[in-house]
């Protein structure tokens, strides 16, 4: 199903205007604010400045300072206040300036945002979105490049979404804002200026992975900025005679097991790719559940290509750390091909 949906979207997208991912997110925010008066945008520097990545550019001017505004500089305050707003009829979309600067809000996210609906037996649901620019590859200094998705994906009650294309950024953010429960919306910084056509009429549903490239011999599973690495590796792999399938996970929780398992079973080999440090990560989860549910189909162990288990390195060293095409190809090479 998700393959079909994907194909349809791609066709429509050919005629659609080209946008950067940042532009697509900006457009999604504007369209959501236009469509629903209860949607508001807040955070640090999201007003006049338009955000340090210019993702909220023009929203304050267009919708007024009561719909898009700067808060005092305190992330727990931002998320905690947004929780109260969502309790009382608003749909706040908050921006955390960088991944590591969401950590002060951790208690509000884990102990409240994630749990409110459950503790009130559904009486209070929190329709709120926490946008977090995440990941590296942009030459940022320390604390500006964390891949923090595992912290959220591990937390029951959160829905964690991570687009890899401008189209998904647009469509999934619209879906996230309409979602009745809190969504952590992870925006790969490295892809903010990547461009592609975006069809703003194409709907997308949270919870569906996407086969980004079909292939018969091995499945690469990735999300965010690693999807591009996977596609590049697939290209090279293909030229070396291996047919490589790529799955873009898109929604980290809930996990689209069906698409994942179908893909892996069809190839019998799998590599999971993610930029985050690998230990106890989303990549661990994907590898573990594939190992558990596709065991009979596996010709080789599920390999993981992830960041090392180190603090995110400084700009001049980050290229050693980040998964790249060669590392993915190395991993593919280990997948017991001699048995074929």
């Amino acid at each position, binding site marked *: 199903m998700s393959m079909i949906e994907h194909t349809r979207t791609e066709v429509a997208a050919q005629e659609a205007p080209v946008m950067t991912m940042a532009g697509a997110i900006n457009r999604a925010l504007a369209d959501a604010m236009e469509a629903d008066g209860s949607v508001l945008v807040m955070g640090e520097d999201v007003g006049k400045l338009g955000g340090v990545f210019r993702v909220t550019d023009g929203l304050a001017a267009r919708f007024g300072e*009561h719909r898009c505004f700067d*808060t*005092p500089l*305190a992330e*727990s*305050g931002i*998320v*905690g*206040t*947004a*929780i*109260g*707003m*969502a*309790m*009382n*009829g*608003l749909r*706040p979309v908050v921006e955390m300036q960088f991944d590591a600067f969401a950590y*002060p809000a951790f*208690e*509000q996210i884990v*102990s*409240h945002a994630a*749990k409110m*609906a*459950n*503790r*009130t*037996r*559904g*009486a*209070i*649901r929190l329709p709120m979105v926490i946008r977090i620019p995440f990941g590296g590859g942009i030459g940022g200094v320390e604390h500006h490049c964390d891949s923090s998705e595992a912290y959220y994906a591990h937390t*029951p*009650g959160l*829905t964690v979404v991570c687009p890899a294309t401008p189209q998904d950024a647009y469509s999934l953010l619209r879906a996230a804002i309409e979602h*009745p*429960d809190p969504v952590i919306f992870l925006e790969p910084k490295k892809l903010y200026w990547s461009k592609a056509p975006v069809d703003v009429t194409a709907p997308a549903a949270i*919870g569906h992975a996407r086969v980004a490239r079909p292939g018969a011999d091995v499945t690469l599973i990735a999300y965010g900025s690693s999807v591009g690495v996977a596609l590049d590796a697939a290209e090279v792999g293909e030229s070396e005679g291996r047919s490589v399938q790529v799955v873009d996970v898109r929604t980290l*929780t*809930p*996990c*689209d*097991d*069906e698409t994942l398992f179908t893909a892996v079973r069809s190839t019998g080999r799998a590599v999971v790719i993610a930029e985050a440090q690998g230990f106890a990560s989303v990549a661990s989860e994907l590898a573990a559940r594939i190992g558990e549910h596709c065991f009979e189909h596996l010709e080789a162990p599920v390999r993981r290509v992830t960041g090392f288990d180190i603090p995110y390195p400084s700009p001049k060293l980050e290229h050693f750390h980040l998964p790249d095409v060669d590392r993915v190809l190395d991993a593919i090479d280990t997948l017991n091909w001699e048995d074929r």
Partner: protein
Amino acid sequence: MDAPDALRTDLLPREHPVRLIDEHGRLTEDDRYAAPPTERLLEAYGALVRGRRINEQANALVRQGRLAVYPSSHGQEACEVAAALALRDGDWLFPTYRDSVAVITRGVDPEEAFVLLRGDWHAGFDPRAHRIAPHATPLATQLLHAVGVAFAAKSRGEDTVVLAMCGDGATSEGDFHEALNFAAVFHVPVVFLVQNNEFAISVPLSRQTAAPSLAHKAIGYGMPGQRVDGNDVAALLAVLGDAVENAREGGGPALIEAHTYRMQAHTNADDDTRYRDREEVRAWEERDPLRRMRAHLLAEGALDDATEAAFAEEADRTATAMRDAMNREVHPDPEDLFRFVHAERTPQLDAQWAQLRDELAREEAGA
């Protein structure tokens, strides 16, 4: 109202907590706050009697194993009652784990109020119906939610006021700071009520702050701070009422520190003999909020035997209802584990419920 000077010392609390009725029940003149009418004090006294009874009954239920845990507000009932009575129906209350009496006084059925402490579920009443947030446990976190609720109401032009409660210990948390700051910068109608009961579990106030008073923190956010005798329900009603109505009229947030005392251990699981003198506790018995209000009403001739009996009866009814409710066996539904986590159950939770259902079915079949 003092004229604001450049240093805004008008935002500082007064030197002594506001008190309208002294420990002997005698009215004290105040140049700013008027004692509420006797009618109102009578209503408050009835609520105090009921509140005390709820505390006693809850303690008894803990001893009988019917409640998992109880943080009693014995001795702090004046704050509990005033917090509930200061609000209109459309307002919102944000209580802590210790504020069950306030929750019940505002109209929640005791049975529902105790669902959390009984261990049946994480919260037991419909917060939206009552406009009371679920009892908050992670300290000070709820103060931010209060700011957000007030913001939303204000953005719709509603005249809702939000009263957000916390303890003296909670004022040390970062979220306390962020909540007061956000409230002041957004100029939203939130009244922060700190029940300074001198202890955070075993830690005395002197280890919590070196400030002249907790109300002195208000000026650092540009909002007024006030101290009030937390065992004087008349003063509490006057000071809270003033802050609430000021907020309602667009005057912005305020911080009220009610000076009271936690007469019992932190919860039944605590042993307060380890960290405080019996002498200190006994001294505070003299300042009991019920005794004081009763003396006052008697002196005013406003409390007759019939009314006292009616109050006692009402308190009895509540206690009996609590006992009955807590003695009814509850059969929690295991499917509830999965029902509310997300609006739509995820495939993963579907599978997990299927697993549990299967386990239970086999267990039943086996048994």
